[in-house]
């Protein structure tokens, strides 16, 4: 069984947010509810200010604290390494959002981040929290794995596009978007990335491209000291950096 993971090359990432857009389209996300986000921030003070950006999907941790805290086992880890939410079990206590060190979880029932409230413009019936004008085929909906348009009162998160990668041929070391045979099984954010800064493959396979990249380019993980062991690695090179603090004491 593969252990799927992602490598993001920060030297190549341009912060264009094509990944966020592709994710939102693929997974019917609300505006602002970015399962795959690119966060922007500044470092330094005038006149030496730097604008930085940082792409941040769910880390699908090896030791996911969100899974351990969920009192009803709605959040769980699959055998092939993904952390998912069962929308039929979730009670909306949001303890997983408290326990996630990466802020990658979203509650479906809260104030809209941007106006107008798109949930009121495209109202859902009692089953769904909203009814987007474009939506994934009904056949792909899978609430047990947190895929589809979510109901109210549950928590959602990046699934590594479970509806795609769960169909990948067994034994595939890497899901390459450039390979026509594998493209439809590759996560949407990886497919859409214009500078090809994203790689997706089997972390347990030493022959996979992602494993080679991590080894050869010294891949690092976000907030690694917390021990959650993300399955998303960043290649920082000479120009990139992973945020290591919350903003300094001046905050």
């Amino acid at each position, binding site marked *: 069984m593969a252990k799927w993971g992602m490598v993001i090359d920060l030297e190549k990432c341009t912060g264009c947010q094509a990944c966020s857009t592709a994710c939102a389209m693929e997974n019917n996300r609300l505006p602002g509810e970015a399962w795959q986000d690119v*966060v922007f921030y500044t470092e330094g003070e005038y006149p030496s200010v730097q604008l930085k950006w940082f792409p941040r999907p769910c880390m699908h941790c090896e030791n996911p604290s969100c899974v351990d*805290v969920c009192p009803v086992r709605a959040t769980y880890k699959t055998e092939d390494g993904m952390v998912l939410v069962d929308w039929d079990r979730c009670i909306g206590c949001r303890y997983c959002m*408290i326990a996630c060190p*990466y802020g990658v979880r979203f*509650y479906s029932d809260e104030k809209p981040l941007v106006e107008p409230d798109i949930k009121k413009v495209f109202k859902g019936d009692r089953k769904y929290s909203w009814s987007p004008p474009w939506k994934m085929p009904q056949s792909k909906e899978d609430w047990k794995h947190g895929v589809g348009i979510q109901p109210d009162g549950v928590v959602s998160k990046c699934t590594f596009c479970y509806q795609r990668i769960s169909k990948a041929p067994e034994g595939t070391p890497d899901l390459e978007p450039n390979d026509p045979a594998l493209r439809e099984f590759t996560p949407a954010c990886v497919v859409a990335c214009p500078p090809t800064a994203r790689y997706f493959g089997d972390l347990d396979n030493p022959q996979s491209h992602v494993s080679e990249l991590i080894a050869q380019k010294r891949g690092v993980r976000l907030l690694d000291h917390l021990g959650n062991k993300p399955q998303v690695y960043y290649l920082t090179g000479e120009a990139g950096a992973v945020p290591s603090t919350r*903003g300094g004491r001046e905050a």
Partner: protein
Amino acid sequence: MTTPSQSTLPMHGLPLNVNGVMKISAAVLALSLILTFYGLLTQGHGAFNTHSYGITWGLPAAAYVYLVLTSTGLTFVASLAMLFRFNEFYPVVKRCIWLAIATLVAGFATLALEIGHPFRMLWALPSGLQYLSPMFWMGVFYTVYLLFLLWKFARIHAGDWTSLQSYAVGLASFVSVVVAHATLGMVFGMMAMRPVWYDGMLPIYFLVTAGLSGIAFAILFTYLAYGFNREKMPEALRGLLSGSAFSGVFAAMIGITLLMVILRTITGLWSNLDGLQVYSHIVRSPLFHAELWLGLVLPFVLMLSPTLRRKPSIQITSSVLVIVSMFIGRYEFMISGQMMPLFKGSWIQGVIEYTPSLTEWMLTLVGISLVFVLYTVGERLLKLAEHPDAK
């Protein structure tokens, strides 16, 4: 089996104050329920100011913690007589156990309206059996605790104060609440990604502050039962409140809490650990100073004075100040653990701002007014002043 003392309330009936409080609290409960449901039915939890990008657990969650820990403390007060044989505390035992039930039920009610699918919890919790989750154990032990409390209350209401079974149920409720409050402490204390909360000794902090809340509630509601007039109280109760035992324990608990609050704050201000910057924000808040100086230092000084601490007005004032201070403390604790963004680049650059919405305030008021309604119903129907003749 010991015979309950007779005529523990004035012969002409209940003091007007209890009836008055019942009417007012029922009106407040009805109004706050209407406004809460209006918010929830029209906007869902969008009526709250909590957000995935901001504060996840807000004022209602703080109110839940406050209420269930107060229940814990009230059980501790009842246990002073029931388990540890400090017999002078018997006159407040039945009222404390009923109040423990009331605060626990009110806490559960607040939480039920705060989460997304409360009824789903009824089957998902037992079928999931996620033993790694402190919240799972919190649910289990607080439910067990509630059952033991009800059982215990039924025993003493039937006049069985001292039988082996009554003692055993009292012991079971005490043990279950110690474990329940500890798991509630671990819900926060295990969160290594949130340094303000991360503390293996947090359950001890909760234990102490729960005890203090319980004592303050016991004092206030005992006075309330007699129209804030100590002269109307039966002799044993009057003796308890005018003696040094109750006020002495109250003073000691305020002192220990004061020490813990000060030490936690100094540690937070001193440490360079990323995430504890929030303490410099907390100490600039007027709420913190109200909690510290008005809610803890002032009652502590008042309770240290051998003459002042026996006066009803001072005891009532101190208990109210402590009750409000403990509420501020719970709110502050809840919010401060979430105020710092998780890492730089989480969109919000500084401290996350949060002001509870009207619906959140109304839900909190539902919990608080429900305590008063349940208490006054108990005072009216369940003879809460009963106690065995202290030997």
